[in-house]
């Protein structure tokens, strides 16, 4: 309802909206990709956020630090979409089918570098995490958000995020045959 009413009262400059959002679109896409793990879904998510805020230029202009604020909006939208999809098992099944089909036909490169292989192993390790752990480790360790920012974005206390992050890192290290810091602590302790 608020969106509709804001739309009525808007007197906005399209260029101003573009100038305000443009520096953040690339980063929003990265966050969206981290969450969705699909380029097309990430693009759709970013587009949704832009369309949502287009009538709210005045509101956007008042935000001091737009980057985490937009990320929070995007995250909330992602979670909403996820909940809706979970209520619609048919859609879920279709998405899975498409995903499997794409994966099946994805050709393997002839020459893989060590870095490619490590990235693949890391991808697999990330897929073994639960959603909460994966999101926090990706947004913190890969996208550089602080825990304080993530606490605001995800509406979760910093302490909870810390423990999710710790478990996620140890799980990844274990998958990559790296030494978790906990193990070192136990050996030394």
């Amino acid at each position: 309802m608020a969106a509709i009413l804001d739309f009525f009262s808007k007197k906005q400059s399209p260029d101003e909206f573009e100038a305000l959002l443009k520096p953040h679109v690339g980063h929003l896409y990265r966050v969206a990709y981290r969450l969705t793990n699909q380029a097309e879904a990430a693009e759709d998510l970013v587009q949704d956020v832009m369309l949502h805020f287009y009538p709210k230029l005045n509101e956007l202009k008042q935000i001091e630090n737009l980057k985490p604020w937009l990320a929070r909006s995007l995250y909330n939208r992602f979670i909403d979409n996820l909940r809706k999809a979970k209520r619609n098992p048919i859609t879920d099944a279709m998405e899975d089918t498409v995903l499997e089909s794409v994966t099946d036909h994805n050709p393997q490169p002839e020459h893989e570098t060590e870095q490619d292989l490590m990235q693949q192993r890391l991808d697999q390790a990330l897929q073994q995490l639960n959603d909460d752990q994966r999101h926090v480790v990706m947004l913190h360790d890969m996208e550089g958000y602080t825990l304080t920012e993530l606490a605001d974005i995800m509406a979760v206390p910093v302490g909870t995020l810390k423990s999710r992050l710790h478990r996620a890192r140890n799980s990844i290290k274990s998958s990559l045959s790296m030494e978790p810091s906990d193990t070192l602590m136990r050996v030394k302790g």
Partner: protein
Amino acid sequence: MHCNIILSQLDDYIDGELKPGQRSQYEAHLGECDSCKQAWQQELQFRSLMKEHDVPAPAVGFEDRAFAKLPRHASSSHKSSFVAGFGGAMAAGIVLFIAAALFLNPVTQQQAIPNIQLTLHEAKKVNMVFDVPEMVADATFSMQVPEHIDIAGRKGLHQIEWKTALKKGKNLLSLPIVAQSAKGGELVAKIKYGDQEKVFRLVLDIQTLDVDSIEQGMFTIMDKAV
């Protein structure tokens, strides 16, 4: 500092979350303890690996396309603010306005004015669908709401005007309104483009009983030069 404390605070140290005093003690320990220093270096290596993990670039031209899809652009998509999701509109009161001859035929057409029922003091979302035969990139849309009917959350706002783009086909406008008295009235919407104007009227009937029904109505179209 004990090695256990050092290792338990490794994340905080790397993330820069230790206080200055703790940090200097921490660094002093790392300078003296090889095993803790090794754990720290391993952790740095891991963090570096995580940072290098990249995402595939978006499709070429994504950014331009994303901005082009905003409603102010001529290529306005079905996701514009004006078109707030046609499928979701069906649960509420809906009125269809067909502008079949929009901006092409200056002849006035008169048809029965659609009406919709509101319950006194109860907000109702009225969905107006404007079926436009061709895209209109720069239209001025205005709406006049009767004095005793409020736009929900915007008490006292009865006259609204804004610029918008209309896509070819169905354009949905959702308007949440509340009747503040039992007196009915007429909502008037106008679309102006160039020297053309189209007027759409909707009769609002007020009742005190709760009615959970979907009203559908015909429309009136009056073309005139402005």
